[in-house]
């Protein structure tokens, strides 16, 4: 019973966030928001000089990255995430939805946390073993490289060692603070 209520609520929320958020629409919307609003938090100055050049910094500014809602495309960890957010599929950024399994492999990128101005390494690891979740499609491409540099590419199915190589959703676990 409780689960049913939760399911309903969950479904409604997912649908809202899942509206085809192609990067383009997303960027356009945010651009408009940025132009019109001064209430967006100002990013703290990046900690290191190196961090200032990091691709994740530009992304965080452009989309107005936030640290509270993992179901939204502009959640700070998703600066290089590509695909359906596990957060909208019954899991979370470091949690696979029920019945799917995380791959021990991933690619590793870095994103700026907008609230402390620090860079964190993020493992973009897929949850695997069932058909694609098809909720909350998000595309971040900060620092993303072609597949001939596999450790920096987000189109690869990072399901090696999963229960099968079938992609279910994209997660974004923090590896560490740099």
């Amino acid at each position, binding site marked *: 019973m409780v689960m049913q209520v939760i399911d309903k609520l969950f479904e409604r929320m997912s649908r809202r966030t899942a509206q085809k958020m192609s990067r383009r629409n997303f960027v356009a919307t945010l651009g408009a928001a940025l132009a019109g609003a001064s209430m967006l938090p100002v990013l703290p100055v990046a900690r290191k000089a190196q961090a200032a050049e990091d691709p994740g910094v530009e992304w965080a500014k452009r989309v107005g990255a936030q640290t509270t*809602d993992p179901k939204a495309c502009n959640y700070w960890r998703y600066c290089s995430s590509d695909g359906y957010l596990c957060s909208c599929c019954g899991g979370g950024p470091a949690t696979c939805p029920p019945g799917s399994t995380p791959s021990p*492999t991933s690619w590793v990128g870095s994103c700026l946390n907008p609230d402390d101005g620090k860079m964190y390494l993020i493992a973009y690891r897929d949850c695997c073993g069932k058909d694609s979740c098809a909720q909350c499609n998000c595309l971040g491409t900060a620092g993303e490289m072609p597949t001939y540099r596999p450790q920096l590419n987000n189109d690869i199915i990072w399901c090696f060692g999963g229960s099968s190589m079938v992609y279910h959703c994209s997660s974004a676990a923090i590896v560490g603070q740099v």
Partner: protein
Amino acid sequence: MTRSMASALLAIFFSGAAISASESLPSADAGTAHESVDPASVPDVLVRRNGTVLPRVSGAAEDYARHCQGCHGHLGDSVVEVPRLKGRVGLFTHSAEGRAYIVQVPNVLQAHLSDARLAALLNWMLREYSGAELPGAFMPYTEAEVALARTHRLGSVIDRRREVIDGLVRLGVVTSPELFTFATDPARY
């Protein structure tokens, strides 16, 4: 109910049923003391709620995390398709060919790291994941050794790996090549 409250609630409900992808890099496992970060200092809804302790990574450890960890895992052991470093990679340093080989595997040779940083990374990796297998008089890699090894590319990684491992068997470093098995193909070492 605000949206973030709702998602927090949902996350709690779902966490029971879902499988966790490991988020933190438990410093104890890795055998060396990474500096750890107080969860309360990390402005992230989940890190704070779960009290996840994150390591602070820098230097060679950061280079490993960015360039190698995705495939080899933070413990130096990930999936059958990627050879295990943990408890094994140090054995390669018992022969000259082996020392060159671990610089020459494509993801090392072609890494976007200078010779000096790569030398530091390899030394860190060897001690971190395979300290026990290093020879007593292990000589750390130098920038010059890495630079020299990088001038030679492997035509076939599989063939070269076999030659190197057969050499280690002949030297008596290991008794059987089976120790080096990887990939789904059991015949492959």
